[in-house]
């Protein structure tokens, strides 16, 4: 991804779009996934899912121009990343250690959220 604009050249990530004959599966280095309504919906769902998981770590995620994600701390420090894998690297930089899905506190919080 271009460091200045955050748009040009970001290769699709394996999590982008369900692979299938009816969906243009992202190639290894081909153009980024098309900006279709279904992809936009998917990005919105991803941001929602990320925020559910990032909240216990004091972080937030947002979509940026349908091409990137912004991850931010409560104090406003932020990074722009082009996919969800890079987002975890940025999260680790921002909080000083990785966000671990095996963290018992996170798991307990998510389990609590799921209870009616």
């Amino acid at each position: 991804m271009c460091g200045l604009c955050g748009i040009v050249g970001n290769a699709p990530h394996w999590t982008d779009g369900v692979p299938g004959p009816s969906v243009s599966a992202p190639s290894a280095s081909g153009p980024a996934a098309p900006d279709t309504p279904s992809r936009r919906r998917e990005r919105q769902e991803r941001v929602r899912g990320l925020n559910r998981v990032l909240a216990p770590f004091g972080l937030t995620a947002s979509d940026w121009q349908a091409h990137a994600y912004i991850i931010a701390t409560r104090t406003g420090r932020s990074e722009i990343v082009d996919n969800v894998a890079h987002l975890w690297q940025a999260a680790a930089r921002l909080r000083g250690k990785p966000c671990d899905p095996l963290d018992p506190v996170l798991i307990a919080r998510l389990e609590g959220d799921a209870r009616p």
Partner: protein
Amino acid sequence: MSERVPLHLLSGFLGSGKTTLLRRMLDTPALGDSAVLVNELGEIGLDHHLLRHIDGETVLLRSGCICCTVRDDLGAALKDLLNRRARGEVPAFTRIIVESTGLADPVPILSTVAADPTLRHHLRIGRVVTTVDAVNAGLQNRQQPEFAKQVAVADRLVLTKTDIASAEPIFPVLRAINPGASVHLVMDPSLDVADLLAEADTRAEALAWTTPPSRLRSAPAHEAGVHSFCMVFDRPVDWVTLGIWLTMLLHANGASILRVKGLLDVAGAEHPVFINGVQHVMHQPLHLDEWPDGDRRSRLVFIVRDLSRELIERSARAFLGHVPEYA
């Protein structure tokens, strides 16, 4: 984009017969259009195969194979090779075989290709073949953590020295670490070394990894703390949530997750999806036209080192809201 060249990795401990297997590959006409990257040209004894020296570090063999020495930087060596291929300075090879050093962790080689946009554009990761020495495998397994890693990342395991030691005690060790790789005996006269690098049929591969369930039950942790297990989900998986969970899991615990493979019933998708990852490196997921067997439940197979199966399962349940259960 022209078709990407597969990069196959030949891994195995020092003295496990890796170079002997490589020499056999170089002797195989079907693999004549290969470029082979080795640590030291002198070690493989190419004299009787040699056609000419292209330069100090590259030779052309009579079979048509090119052999190059890798100094320090594999990425640079691969780019140089691709450039020379494009300029017609070396034959237009259709595969690359990289021999890893004996004690090396093979994963950084795969990461080099996956992480570099140029290499990713021209190359794709092919087969990982690991040689296992039947004489010393037990000892290496107990004493060298890299042993389990080399076995875990393999698509094909080649047992060597079975004329000196029985292969029987090694099978359960290999199965406990890697339940999905095919196991071959180098002494087997019917072994076609070209087949070791052949593309796997995705359906057959998915089947080998995710069935029969008994093979994928959590094996007792072996001495190095490596074990494999299979989670079976009782309902379709949400793709976006799975992506969040798995990328997060691999980022935080990639060094302990030697392998993940899965056959998934994705919510809203008509076809099953096959995912395949080696530590931090995830291959592009593939869809299958149909389920390989009658079982349509999502299955995720993990090979982990010193990670709690129960914790991974609980985490998956908390993220995905499912109740994974063992087959």
